[in-house]
């Protein structure tokens, strides 16, 4: 293999990380509030609201049930509107984020639901406002679980980013597809897959480590 190819792969790794991390962060910016809303508007909870809960729940289910490859295609006009292009690394961040939001929201929802209702009751008895209950009680208590969830989401988005290679996204997925599949360069295919595996391992292990460090029970 030529050094040129290594540069190509090196760039691919950077692009992949850039897409994955940016899209995950963006997905959390939107998915985290939705996840919180799904919990607190549920029945018998602090901001019970049937309509908001139902609408959000249905929306999340709709987006989650669209296969990511289809979502990529469907979102092309939207992506072009947001980034001015529908191909390349930056453009790929848009469908990645949209695809990850419902997963993030549901993951956050299930983490927050693990917090015992007694904690919320204690918070209420202290005179805590709903905002205080969410940010000083529920989220700190759910933190280890939220971190584990974030790790899983990161790995999922990484997988999606490789898929985006099909329709002109950058990163390792595009390299694997263009060189490994279309040009039958199996060595490149194996190398990219190996790198993807290593990245997922690193994400997963460091996430688990961080979550365990944060967990005190």
């Amino acid at each position: 293999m030529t050094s040129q190819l290594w540069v190509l792969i090196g760039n691919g790794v950077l692009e992949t990380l850039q897409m994955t991390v940016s899209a995950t962060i963006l997905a959390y910016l939107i998915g985290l509030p939705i996840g919180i809303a799904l919990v607190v508007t549920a029945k018998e909870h602090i901001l019970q609201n049937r309509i908001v809960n139902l609408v959000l729940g249905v929306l999340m289910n709709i987006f989650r049930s669209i296969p990511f490859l289809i979502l990529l295609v469907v979102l092309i006009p939207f992506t072009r509107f947001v980034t001015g292009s529908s191909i390349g690394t930056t453009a790929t961040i848009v469908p990645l984020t949209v695809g990850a939001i419902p997963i993030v929201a549901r993951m956050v929802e299930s983490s927050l639901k693990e917090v015992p209702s007694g904690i919320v009751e204690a918070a209420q008895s202290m005179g805590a406002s709903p905002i205080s209950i969410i940010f000083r009680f529920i989220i700190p208590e759910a933190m280890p679980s939220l971190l584990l969830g974030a790790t899983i989401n990161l790995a999922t988005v990484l997988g999606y980013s490789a898929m985006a290679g099909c329709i002109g996204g950058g990163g390792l997925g595009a390299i694997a597809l263009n060189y490994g599949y279309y040009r039958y360069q199996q060595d490149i295919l194996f190398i990219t897959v190996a790198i993807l595996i290593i990245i997922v391992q690193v994400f997963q292990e460091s996430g688990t480590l961080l979550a365990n460090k944060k967990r005190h029970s």
Partner: protein
Amino acid sequence: MSEQTAIFRLNHVTKLFQTKNSTVRAVDDVSFDIRQGEIFGIIGMSGAGKSTLVRMLNRLEEATDGEVIFDGKNLGNLSNKQLRTIRMSMAMIFQSFNLLMQKTVLANVMLPMKIAHVPHKEQKERALQMLKVVGLEDKASAWPAQLSGGQRQRVAIARALAMNPKVLLCDEATSSLDPKITEEILALLKDINQKLNLTIVIITHEMSVVEKICDRVAIISDGKLAEIGEVKEVFTSPKTEAARHLILPVEKELNLFDTTDRRCIRIVFDGRAASDPLIANLVADTGVKVNILCADTKTVGGVGFGQMIVELPKDEDAANLVINYIKEKGVNFHEIERKGDKI
């Protein structure tokens, strides 16, 4: 007693729960006062509605009907913001402690002050002070998971006291602790009650808890107030079936003996009467032999009490002779009622 101010006043408080097929009256037209500075017990069997009742004292549970007045304010008329402010002066501890497991002991105790926007330095100082009160100043940087159940409840008490509340509501606070630790926690509560003149409301299903530290007790049965009064009074002469059932769980065990067709009485001795050998004198003076089915002693409000269940002779005249004799001696007793063929 009437000149004492009421910190809580419950007027015809009712709570209905709507289930699919029926309406459950969890709390049914309950009215009583809780006085400033007392330790007030609310006791009942599980499902009697006592947990719902205590949650209405800080409006964690809304009353369907009636009013709860705290410190002169009708809780039902308060806005959410006013309610939150007033809740800061009524702390609560729970059966499951409800500490934040991902925060240190110190951070847990500081939480109520954080919510109330107390300056950070003061939060820490006061939290350490409260930990000292409950005897855990050396555990400030520990995590709740490293503590025993009794220690966790102490942290919860420190957290409850942090905002210098007017009342402390205890919802089955000792029910998950073993008897020895329960005693320690009750002693701590009594101590706090006396030192800080803090009103304490204790919800429990265990008569022993009420006997040990409460001044007055309300007995709740099927959502209704069955009986209320000084603990000593209720203990020595319970007027209702519900009260007797709680005070005398031994009555059930009497079924072990075949006493279906015989009359039994429960005699209660206080410190004074306990010095005379009542039964020995009874047998000597009347010549009637009685059968002692069970006897035990308890400490109620710091005074020793003995109780004894005695089976009367089958002969009506002899039985009346015994009853008259005990009456004459001025000893507290009542005949145990039977339900069907059970005692």
